[in-house]
């Protein structure tokens, strides 16, 4: 069911934990659908120097968190904002169709953390799409045949 990469990131998740006094914190998901992801950022010179996550959720949620944090670490905030769920899923060598929403969650949580960072810095905040909008936006067409 899962790719080797997913299993690796699930079993040995990178960047697990918290950052004390983070520059930005964001959370996405809710207990109803069974996934909650929390992202902590340390930003210096507009670059993400450190990132940590805590995730409640299934294997693909944990692997997506791990992979997403890897992908944005060292990137500028701007670049991190543009990380799509598809990029996360691709970096994991794919996710089962029913699990794509987990990668959406990672995108959301990072957006939330970045906006928190911007808010703290007094920078203009970007519009966050809701989870449903993101799922609609990114996954439209995938489940047509259900």
């Amino acid at each position, binding site marked *: 069911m899962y790719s080797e990469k997913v*299993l690796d990131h699930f079993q040995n998740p990178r960047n697990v934990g918290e950052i004390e006094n983070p520059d930005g914190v964001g959370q996405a998901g809710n207990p109803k659908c069974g996934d*909650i992801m929390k992202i902590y950022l340390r930003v210096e010179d507009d670059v993400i120097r450190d990132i940590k*996550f805590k*995730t409640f*959720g*299934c294997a693909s949620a944990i692997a997506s968190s791990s992979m997403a944090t890897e992908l944005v670490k060292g990137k500028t905030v701007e670049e991190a904002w543009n990380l799509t769920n598809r990029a996360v899923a691709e970096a994991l060598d794919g996710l089962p169709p029913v699990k794509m929403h987990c990668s959406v969650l990672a995108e959301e949580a990072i957006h939330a953390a970045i906006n928190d960072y911007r808010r703290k810095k007094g920078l203009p905040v970007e519009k966050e799409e809701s989870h449903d909008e993101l799922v609609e936006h990114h996954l439209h067409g995938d489940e047509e045949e259900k």
Partner: protein
Amino acid sequence: MARQVYLDYAATTFTDPRVVEAMNPYFTRSFGNPSSIYSFSEENRRAIAEARKQVASVLGSAPEEIYFTGSGTEADNWALQGIASKNRSKGNHIITTKIEHHAILHTGQFLQKNGYDVTFLDVDAEGRVSLETLKKAVTDKTILVSVMFANNEIGTIEPIAEIGAFCRERGIYFHTDAVQATAHVPIDVKAMNIDLLSLSAHKFYGPKGVGALYIKKGVKIDNFMHGGAQERGRRASTENVAGIVGLGAAIELASSRMASASERISRLRDMLIDGVMKAVPHAKLNGAPSGERLPNNANFSFIGIEGETLLLDLDRAGIYGSTGSACSSGSLDPSHVLMAIGLSHELAHGSLRLTLGEETTEEDIQYVLSVLPGIVKERREMSPLWEDYLKSFDKGR
């Protein structure tokens, strides 16, 4: 090879080698169509008649009241749809519960779409339906009550005899999905006033793909599977002779050892429950206390972790269980059973079902107890929910 501990007997059992042996002649040697009149099929006809007797003797019915099907699901579909359509003129109201297996739940919803009025009864925090709730739901249009004998997720045994007596008195047909209960706990369709009962072979060491529906003589029910005149004109399809023989052999074997197996297995199960409750902080046992649940069922919720995660971590340790988490089923909602007993979404998503069986040993349980607490601890440490829970818990004190 690493240790393998299968603890998902409620999902399906292996087929007992003696059952396989009983089935074998019916593949290659005695393969004739039992509905043919020639002598070549005599052995098959007799074998099916024998299986019918074996089932009847375990349920306390007459052999002619047993009809073989292709699964427990088919028996459930048949019972609900067949009673509904045949008794439409008497009423269109059906009562069942919120904790039924999907085979009943989805059939009930299908009937709702087709003009029936279906009530799904609430259950208490341990998963028990109360006679009072049922009584309140009955109307003069009620034609069928369907309450499962024992729940497949949390193992809670329902007050079947009470419900049966009430339904009989009110002249309402009573069906019970006994797929999890058959050959695991004593059943007597007469004493319990059961009109229809579903069972499935692969839950008691028989083959997959064969089940049965008990239909009390005189019950008015339409056919579900239309076609040839097999099963005395009531269930079409060339008889699955080997499967039926397997079901018969399995039910006989399993019920002959039921008392001793139940004692042995419930002892191990209690050892598992006690061990987990001690070793895992803030663990919750779902379902009824030991005496009122299936002997082989344990169901826990571990706040802060998600079930699929747990399954995969246990899998790496060679332990095979199941969860009520949505993630493992492809839907987004967690187990309807766990929600119905009042669990929060967090707890429902964090559930683990371990069900024991014939090959479960004390060493297996000890092995689980040596592995599970560590896994829970580790995953909780990376969970934002656990963090929040601990904070609110500390505040609460």
